[in-house]
């Protein structure tokens, strides 16, 4: 494992998302406490931790998906390229076009494969004509490593694909709005090992263009795909650092307990 993570180490890069003293409350329940994280550009950052530790909650703060939960309240400062995303002037719709998201369960729209990918560019007016839209759809499906499998049936329903293909379709849909950051909430938890391997390979390729944040339950996955790892426990960010360092030489005893399987 050590060799693998050493290979994928990257140099210091520009910070995309910066969280400082981020707090999340569900009603009176304090779900996230004082989280400080820097998400770097062109880097895969993995959030790991036991169930209910708040890693998905924190991920959903980054593109304000938590806004849809009435009782949810976010405090502290989260910035995207220096701009506070919780500033009252920020329209979450614009923010979500810049920060794409892939969900745990593949959730393609019950529309055609083409329409699934074309939906984002259409509502944001990113293309001027049909030819340009066709091009965007093709390039996104290529980036998502799905083009060869679906190019002959672009107008077949997206829900008719296999689970792994559906998840790659969702990734194509998410990158079609040319986001700067891609959030992935356990994208492989509903997939078999082969589809998982395909998606992981894809994540590694996407790193060249996007900043990727991935929540995962699988520590092997975190080690395989990420350069930075954040370990959450009971709403606290316990440790954040280079993936190689987290997995080989954790500083906090709780991190060590978790990665060696003693808590979780």
């Amino acid at each position, binding site marked *: 494992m050590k060799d693998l993570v050493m290979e994928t180490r990257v140099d210091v890069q520009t910070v995309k998302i910066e969280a400082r003293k981020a707090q999340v409350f569900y009603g009176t329940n304090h779900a996230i406490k004082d989280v400080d994280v820097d998400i770097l550009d062109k880097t895969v950052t993995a959030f790991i931790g036991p169930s209910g530790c708040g890693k998905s909650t924190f991920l959903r703060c980054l*593109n304000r*998906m938590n806004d*849809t939960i*009435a009782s949810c309240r976010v405090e502290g400062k989260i910035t995207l390229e220096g701009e506070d995303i919780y500033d009252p002037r920020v329209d979450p*719709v*614009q*923010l*979500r*076009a810049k920060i*794409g*998201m*892939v*969900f745990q*369960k593949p*959730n*393609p*729209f*019950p529309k055609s494969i083409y329409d699934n990918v074309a*939906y*984002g560019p259409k*509502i*944001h007016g990113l293309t001027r004509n049909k030819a340009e839209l066709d091009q965007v759809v093709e390039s996104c499906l290529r980036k998502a490593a799905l083009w060869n499998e679906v190019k002959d049936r672009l107008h077949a329903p997206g*829900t008719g694909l296999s689970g792994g293909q559906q998840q790659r379709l*969702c990734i194509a*849909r*998410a990158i*079609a*709005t040319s986001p700067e950051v891609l959030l992935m909430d356990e994208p492989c938890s509903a997939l078999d090992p082969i589809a998982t391997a395909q998606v992981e390979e894809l994540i590694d390729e996407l790193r060249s263009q996007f900043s990727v944040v991935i929540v995962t339950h699988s520590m092997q996955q975190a080690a395989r795909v990420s350069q930075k790892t954040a370990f959450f426990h009971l709403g606290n960010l316990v440790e954040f650092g280079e993936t190689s360092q987290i997995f080989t030489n954790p500083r906090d005893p709780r991190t060590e307990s978790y990665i060696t399987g003693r808590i979780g």
Partner: protein
Amino acid sequence: MSGSLLTQDPRTKARNAAERRFRGYGLTAIVVALLALVWLLISIFSAGLPAFRQTFLTFPVTLDEKVLDKSGTRDIAVMSKVTTVAFAKLLSQSIEAEITARGIDLGGASAKDVTKLVSEESAATLRRMVLADPALVGTTIEFTALATGRIDGYYKGRVTMESAALDKNTSPEQLVLADKLKEAGILGTRLNSGFLTMPDASDKRPEAAGLGIAVVGSFLMMVVVLVLSLPIGVAASVYLEEFAPKNWLTDLIEVNIANLAAVPSIVYGILGLAIFINFAGLPQSAPIVGGLVLTLMTLPRIIIPTRAALKAVPPSIRDAALGVGASKLQTVLHHVLPLAMPGILTGMIIGLAQALGETAPLLLIGMVAFVRDFPGGLFDPAAALPVQVYNWTQRGDPGFVERASGAIIVLLLFLIVMNTVAIILRRKFERRW
């Protein structure tokens, strides 16, 4: 657990017996329900189908100029001074002349018996015919007249020789004469389209009563209900389900909608009488008022299934749309509403079907009135199908029993058509996700 698998222990036996009993209860319930339905349908159809057939008399009528247009000018204003009484006399003279000409033996039937073969309604029909086409005066036409209710009833088995002997409206001799006329081809029973197109008729003329105005009135009301309750119901549901904050006020609204759906419909009638007629001054018996009242009644019954349909759309679809940066409205319009459409349409049509069959509120706003003229619009007096059924069951003449049952058949057909449309739309719009 010890013991052989090949023999059942007492506990298993008891459990199996309980299961058999339970299945037996369920099956019994289904059989009872089906028998009740079959019995209902048989009784309605056997009583109602004769309403779609009617006995007619066809004979030549000479439209005498001396009687119908003394001035000889064919001026409508002058001609309309001739009343139906003169036309009735003309008809009875014509039928008598025809009987004599064919050499049919009266067999003891009185002159009154002969006159009363023809419905009183036919004189009015002939008068309308002549006034619409004055050129007919002076010519001889083949006229098809309705037979009276008793003669019609004789051919539908409602009137017998025994009952005719006790009835002052008919006599056994008249029935014998009718049989002879039937042999001669003057009298016959055939399909009666008038039942669906003619207006209602007075108590003594069941043979002339039709559903025309009731069908038009019900149709107009359904248009009002559809046009008002579809947009209001869907907009209210979408707002409550997708946009409204969850607080005590929306909770209160939710509880009230559920309660309103259970409010007896006659209460809506009183409400409609107070608001639309007494306060707003809209005309009585008008389809617009009926439609408004039925809209009020239908709205909660549409909002509840619509909200259920919206709720049934998986949240992952909403997440997906929001995740690519769709606004709340785009999420609802592009994804949630299309997926909820089959459920919404089904709820809508079932709501409309309930409104179509509703009687009580319409009684209170005057839809029970006797209306002879077809409504020209939403503000003219009209009748409604279920109220027409209620109305006819109140009448004394036994001829109205078959009319009421016939109207129920028409109402049932409308309901079956609407429910079929609901099923077809559901199938068409249903998508899997």
